[in-house]
């Protein structure tokens, strides 16, 4: 080993804490990169493979009752590769040992042959016998939640009759990787099931002989989805078609998409932050190392070492840090990435996982990390190469300070404060970057923790301000309005409000959209409609109130006229004014006065659902009664949904907070510790002199740590600002038709992020303080720097 390489190893060992702190920042960058890209690719590939093998459809549509022969016409549409029609209905279930009713989405299996699209992946048992009406395959998650195995039974209220269903198998489906029940914001496998039943049984149960209510279409490669959707809509229009849509609007698909988007965003945002900070840390560390070794460099040059050899020596130092970072980060990222992929795999019920951890991910990691490190070290190394030996052997020119903070205009400042101020101003770039580094640490926290504020806000809005009902009953079909009285008489019902949902097409100019418009009573008390100022809206007698998202799509404001075309019952086309814009975070919604809607439909007053408030003490009586109510297709229990949601969220919160805290701590610690060590190296002599003069350890530490404390404190608001900005970008990126993310950052989030950053800074300061305390007083007196 050459002497220079031995020096390299000794330097690395001597500066090990600093080296490790920098390497950890790099490792965090590498880990997030490897984790995010690896998990993204794996999940994307897993999903693609799953979709491909189990023929997940591309376009979906629902109708009230479409004749079977329409399938052939849909198949004729150019670009359509395969069509499968089904009957899909919801029903409430009565599961023994669970008082509250659960909701099942019942899906028909083809009468003849195998499923063409959205095929089941059987986990246990077999598919139902096409001739048997009582056999069902359920989704595995539901079976697991209740400990069901093939042969077990549960009851479902189908077509007004309680029927016993025998589970003959459990399955996974590409269509339900994320299965949400009505009103749920998180899957609740106990209260929501998907059940596959023979087509024949479904036809007779829902009175749909020779008809279908749901169609899935697979497209030919290169086919235009929009064109196919258009044609399907036209074909289904007369049969209560509710608007075809592609995968991106299919709930199950879209939720995974949102997760994948987040991973992609993570891969784009986090690694650059870490690498930038690491480059900065390498820059200041190497600059200091070179300054300390100035005379040695001169000596080596005088001895005949080539400048390039000496430059290479320092580059090796930098490369060594990068390599340590890549190795740690690569291992951690792979490990965490596999874990995350498995976690997602379970959450999204994938039957298998395809891990995609190509060598290229690591190659990218190595290239960007070593690149960033080299960039950080370049300036210092260049100064080494350029330094003429004669100059190097002399002491460096003294540092010039500026007379800012002179006694005059800030007379109250102590000399130690003046020292702090002048030092910051003497190295403004370094101070600024130190601040920025600490701020980025806080920003990472704000930008990740804000998600919980937004979710909290949305749930508060949804469950406590807008939809305050305890339960929502939805009927399989529209019912005469008098059913409301029946519901009011159910045990435990305190109040009930009707609603009616009708599929419509709404137009504004050339923009149009198919949505369900929900009719509500004029001044609802339970399920309220709030405008964008969060003020309850009283439904005007005429007029149309779209949600903000829908209004944006249509480009309408209050006062504009929209054209509404009914897609159910007799076709009507009516012009209506937009009377309010509604606040909503989930889905595309539109509201009308229920009477106006009934008039529009030109039929007797009908309801499709009832919102109700219940006496919690009599909930079980109510549940029992509802389970026997023939018309009810689904029951949503808002408070249960919220509970489940909060429970799942709390679990995620713990994981997420610890991961992001770890990342932020790595940055804050790395920045503060390195800044402090470099300052100590530069000013150790000065500080020891002050100790000789009779300054206490605390006073002397303050001069160095006070500067960092000041920079850290100044960095906190900057971190809030940067974090808010990143959160804004993230929130924009997460907007979709399924949900909107309000940008809410609570004070608690700001405070938490600041506390974590401060904590990391304080720990690193304490580590450096131990070194300040051990400063050798006599040593500094003997030598000139």
């Amino acid at each position, binding site marked *: 080993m050459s002497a220079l390489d031995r020096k390299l190893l000794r330097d690395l060992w001597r500066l090990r804490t600093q080296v490790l702190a920098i390497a950890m920042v790099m490792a965090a960058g590498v880990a997030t990169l490897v984790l995010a890209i690896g998990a993204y690719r794996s999940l994307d590939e897993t999903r693609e493979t799953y979709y491909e093998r189990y023929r997940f459809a591309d376009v979906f549509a629902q109708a009230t009752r479409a004749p079977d022969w329409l399938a052939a016409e849909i198949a004729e549409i150019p670009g359509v590769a395969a069509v499968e029609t089904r009957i899909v209905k919801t029903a409430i279930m009565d599961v023994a040992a669970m008082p509250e009713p659960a909701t099942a989405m019942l899906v028909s299996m083809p009468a003849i042959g195998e499923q063409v699209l959205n095929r089941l992946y059987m986990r246990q048992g077999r598919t139902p016998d096409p001739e048997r009406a009582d056999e069902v395959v359920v989704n595995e998650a539901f079976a697991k939640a209740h400990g069901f195995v093939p042969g077990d039974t549960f009851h479902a209220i189908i077509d007004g009759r309680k029927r016993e269903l025998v589970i003959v198998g459990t399955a996974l489906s590409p269509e339900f990787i994320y299965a949400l029940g009505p009103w749920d914001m998180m899957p609740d496998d106990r209260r929501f099931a998907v059940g596959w039943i023979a087509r024949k049984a479904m036809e007779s149960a829902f009175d749909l002989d020779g008809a279908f209510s749901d169609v899935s279409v697979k497209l030919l490669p290169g086919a235009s989805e929009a064109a196919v959707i258009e044609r399907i809509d036209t074909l289904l229009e007369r049969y209560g078609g509710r608007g075809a849509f592609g995968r991106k609007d299919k709930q199950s698909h879209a939720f995974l998409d949102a997760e994948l988007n987040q991973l992609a965003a993570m891969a784009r945002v986090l690694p650059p932050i870490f690498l930038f900070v690491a480059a900065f840390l390498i820059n200041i560390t190497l600059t200091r190392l070179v300054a300390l070794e100035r005379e040695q460099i001169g000596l080596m040059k005088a001895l005949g070492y080539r400048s390039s050899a000496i430059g290479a020596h320092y580059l090796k130092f930098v490369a060594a840090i990068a390599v340590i970072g890549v190795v740690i980060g690569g291992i951690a990222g792979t490990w965490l990435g596999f874990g995350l992929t498995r976690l997602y795999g379970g959450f999204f019920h994938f039957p298998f996982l395809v891990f995609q951890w190509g060598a290229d991910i690591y190659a990218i990691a190595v290239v960007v990390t070593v690149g960033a490190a080299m960039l950080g070290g370049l300036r210092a190394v260049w100064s080494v190469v350029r330094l003429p030996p004669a100059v190097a052997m002399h002491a460096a020119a*003294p540092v010039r300070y500026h007379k800012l903070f002179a006694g005059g205009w800030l007379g109250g400042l*102590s000399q130690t404060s003046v020292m702090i101020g002048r030092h910051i101003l003497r190295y403004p770039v370094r101070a600024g970057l130190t601040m920025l580094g600490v701020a980025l640490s806080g920003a990472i926290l704000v930008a990740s923790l804000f998600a919980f504020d937004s979710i909290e806000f949305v749930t508060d809005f949804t469950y406590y301000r807008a939809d305050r009902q305890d339960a929502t009953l939805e009927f399989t079909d529209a019912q005469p309005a008098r059913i409301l009285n029946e519901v009011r008489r159910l045990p435990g019902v305190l109040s009930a409000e009707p609603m009616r949902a009708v599929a419509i097409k709404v137009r504004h100019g050339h923009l149009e959209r198919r949505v369900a418009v929900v009719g509500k009573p004029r001044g609802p008390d339970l399920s309220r409609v709030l405008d964008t100022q969060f003020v309850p809206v009283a439904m005007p007698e005429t007029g149309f109130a779209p949600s903000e998202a829908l209004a944006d799509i249509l480009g309408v404001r209050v006062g504009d006229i929209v054209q509404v075309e009914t897609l159910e019952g007799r076709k009507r086309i009516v012009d209506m004014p937009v009377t309010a814009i509604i606040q909503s975070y989930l889905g595309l919604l539109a509201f009308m006065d229920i009477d106006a809607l009934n008039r529009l439909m030109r039929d007797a007053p009908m309801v499709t659902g009832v919102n109700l408030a219940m006496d919690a003490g009599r909930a079980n009586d109510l549940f029992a009664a509802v389970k026997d109510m023939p018309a009810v297709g689904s029951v949503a229990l808002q408070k249960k949904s919220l509970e489940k949601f909060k429970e799942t969220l709390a679990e995620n919160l713990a994981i997420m907070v610890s991961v992001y805290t770890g990342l932020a701590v790595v940055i804050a610690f790395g920045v503060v510790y390195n800044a402090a060590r470099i300052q100590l190296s530069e000013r150790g002599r000065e500080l020891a002199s*002050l100790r000789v*003069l009779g*300054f206490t350890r605390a006073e002397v530490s303050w001069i160095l740590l006070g500067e960092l404390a000041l920079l850290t404190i100044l960095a906190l608001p900057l971190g809030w600002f940067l974090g808010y900005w990143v959160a804004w970008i993230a929130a924009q990126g997460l907007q979709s038709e399924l949900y909107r993310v309000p940008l809410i950052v609570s004070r608690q989030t700001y405070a938490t992020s600041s506390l974590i950053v401060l904590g990391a800074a304080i720990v690193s300061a304490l580590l450096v303080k131990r070194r300040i305390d051990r400063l050798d*007083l006599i040593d500094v007196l003997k030598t000139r720097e």
Partner: protein
Amino acid sequence: MPQPVFIVEALTKVYRTGDVEVHALRGVDLEIDAGEFLVLLGPSGSGKSTLLNILGGLDHATAGRVLFRDAELTAFSERQLTLYRREHVGFVFQFYNLVPSLTARENVSLVTEIATDPMRPEEALERVGLGARLDHFPAQLSGGEQQRVAIARAIAKRPKVLFCDEPTGALDSKTGVRVLEALVKVNQDLGTTTAVITHNVAIGQIADRVVYFADGQVARVEENATRQVAAAISW
């Protein structure tokens, strides 16, 4: 009969580095009187700095005692030593050890801010003849000027004792003399007990007493019947 400020009894200092033991002091006995101007002479490595560092509260003795007035300095804790340095001791070193980011005046203020009964920084600087260079940074001052700032900084708190370890070591003769003049003036005006280490035998002439060190011990002590003025010597 003036009171002794320091009584040093059988002071021993052993440095241990690994297996090697260096006996820097081997039983030093010495008394230093209040207001006295002492010069310490002796070959390199004879223990002069070690003694002064212990007297100044910068280092701990291995054995023996040092009494500072009535207090036993050798029994002081780290915290007490810091306070002792802060209140009673002024230091001047060969390499001035000024704070580069503070001006001359501010370097002096550094000490006056934490002292109980200091003089004004301007006054301290005037005493060493630097009344006109108050707002210069160390980097803008010559070596001799920097050393005089260090003296001003050392005396500004009106210390009981002033320890100078080769204060003229890095200076030429003419500049060195100006520094010595400043020291003598402080000693006479303020009555500060002053101990100066030097390799320069000529400097012995300005002292009340000259202590000769050899091999970690006091070899002999000479008293000057009359003190020379600093301006009269040169080297």
